[in-house]
């Protein structure tokens, strides 16, 4: 139990995928202009990460390893993730077309969110069991979502700030992201890997 808790804490905060490992920066910058969109993105990523972790574990242990096809894992995982993302897109379009609009290209691009593939591969590398894989995926997703929501709320505040002309938009967002990463360095060494 403690193990799982530490795993969750490590994946969500200490080794936050965005702010400590700099994975998944593309949606982090791209979908952080509006809180509703970011919340949708956070949920979608959480969903994809959890599902992809579980499915990739299943495929790895029951298909790839028995058949000796370990070297196919990147290809197979990408295929799998693409499938999950497609499914998510169908779901989003059915439930909230506005969110579908807001996420735009970034929804299918979850496929290429390196955090997702990263989690699937890390699960294999660290020999996580099924439960561990699910927890790792979910907490990585939660950590991504948390960072994204905090960042979005910050950016919404910056929208109304008197930012120098040269820094408006993406530059100030990147500076902010950098300072966030600086703040997250404070967690370094927290014993949880």
């Amino acid at each position, binding site marked *: 139990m403690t193990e799982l808790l530490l795993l969750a804490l490590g994946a969500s905060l200490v080794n936050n995928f965005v702010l400590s490992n700099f994975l998944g920066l593309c949606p982090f910058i791209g979908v952080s202009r509006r809180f509703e969109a970011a919340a949708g993105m956070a949920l979608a990523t959480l969903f994809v990460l959890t599902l992809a972790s579980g499915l990739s574990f299943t495929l790895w242990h029951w298909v790839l390893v028995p058949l000796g096809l370990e070297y196919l894992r990147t290809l197979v995982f990408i295929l799998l993730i693409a499938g999950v993302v497609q499914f998510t897109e169908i779901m989003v379009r059915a439930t909230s077309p506005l969110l579908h609009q807001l996420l735009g290209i970034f929804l299918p691009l979850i496929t290429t969110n390196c955090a997702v593939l990263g989690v699937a591969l890390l699960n294999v590398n660290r020999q996580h069991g099924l439960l561990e894989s699910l927890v790792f995926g979910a907490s990585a997703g939660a950590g991504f979502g948390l960072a994204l929501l905090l960042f979005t709320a910050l950016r919404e*505040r910056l*929208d*109304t700030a*008197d930012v120098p002309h040269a820094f408006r938009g993406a530059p100030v967002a990147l500076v902010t992201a950098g300072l966030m990463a600086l703040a997250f360095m404070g967690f370094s060494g927290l014993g949880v890997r």
Partner: protein
Amino acid sequence: MAVRSRFPAGLALDAHKQQACGTQIVELPLPAHLVLALDQGTGYSAEPVVAVGEAVATGTLVARTGHPFASAVHAPLAGIVVAIEAREAAVEGGRSVCIVIEGNGSDRIDDSVRPVKDPASLGPEELVRRLRDAGIAGLGGAGFPASTKLASARNLGAHTLVLNGAECEPWICCDDALMRSAASDVVLGALILRRAAGAVRCVIAIEEDKPAAIAAVTGAIDGLRDDAVTLAVVPAVYPQGAERQLITTVAGVEVPSGGLPADAGVICQNVATAAAVARWATRGEPMLSRVVTVTGSGVGHPGNVRAPIGTPLAALIAASGGYRGTPLRLIAGGSMTGRALPSDEVGLTKSMNCVLVATRDDIGSRLGAVELPCIRCGDCANSCPAGLLPQQLLRAALADAHDTLRQLGVHDCIECGLCDYVCPSQIPLADRFREAKRRLQEAEAMTKKAADARERHELRQRRLQEAATIEQETFESVRGRARRPGVDSTGDSN
């Protein structure tokens, strides 16, 4: 009975009452001419019923209205109507149609001015109607017709009448003076108002820094032997006299956001309104005059004056010792919420409780203010009597973010000005919020208009569709009978 403030925050301000409060109320002699604004301060105007050149007597109805937010206007002076035209006035927007009456020395009194024989015999509805015809408007500062409030209070079943004698705003003391000199009028008016509103209880609320008024009103209540009329001594905290805040202090209930006091079972009237009702009952006099505080460092003898409605402010100030020093602003109302007027030619309105002639001594702090960016210190939020976050509202107002403004309650802002008062960055917050409200209201009106248009358009589309279907069916059936019907000859011309 002393009670605690129960609304969020508020602040004890420098009251500046001593200047005008020492003396008795002075009756102003009738001025040579009067400028009666048809908008008496609510933003809605009455319709004139006299013509230029017509002679009027004291108490003659000169403007009538069917609008619930406007009040009827009577001539306080016998004379001739010399002009009906748009002029500068102490109202929103700065201009209103005014009836100008020049006195002709006659003291003819209109036939309609007759004491009410027995006000107690009138039913509530009859009372409300008569008060409306008498043009009785709230004298506390908003000028809202008393009859409209009374009618809605009765419809919503208000049980408590709160008489507002808090008078929290700096400089103003006309209600204080009135309560000291005419406490029995206040109490008599209270009884009539209570009857008209269908309320059971009546609470007269006075701020604790007015001991003489408290004593006078206590005496008048004691003479009444009516347990349902009580006195509440409230803390001298600004804005204690704001309607909603006072209701919360006195009755312990909050007026729902966007609702009326009557929704909380309370109706609030000013003590001066009650006194005016008593004047109407005992003398039959419609609202012809009011007590107004003339004060400020820029006026010779500050004091309280009973003056006819429409008295040009110049005449009012001349009778109070004239200008002194270098007056910089002429403010209708107190220093916190008063409206700065461009000219002293405007006439006294029913809603004008104070004329503040301010010099640099009085308003130097504002004149010398340097606006800095908001540092989010939160002092404004800690003083806001409506529990708002002005620092966040400011951001939303600057960004013109309508949804955020609504969520953060810009419509709940009572524009008391405390946030401005305490702001260390000296930002004119209240004015920003007034502007934001105006723009929001405009946007909301536009949305509503668009929604109406959408509905009408959709109805039309449906109607056209149905018509087309019917036409199609008719055409089909006609074609079924005769293969070639008569050709419409105009059809091919273009």
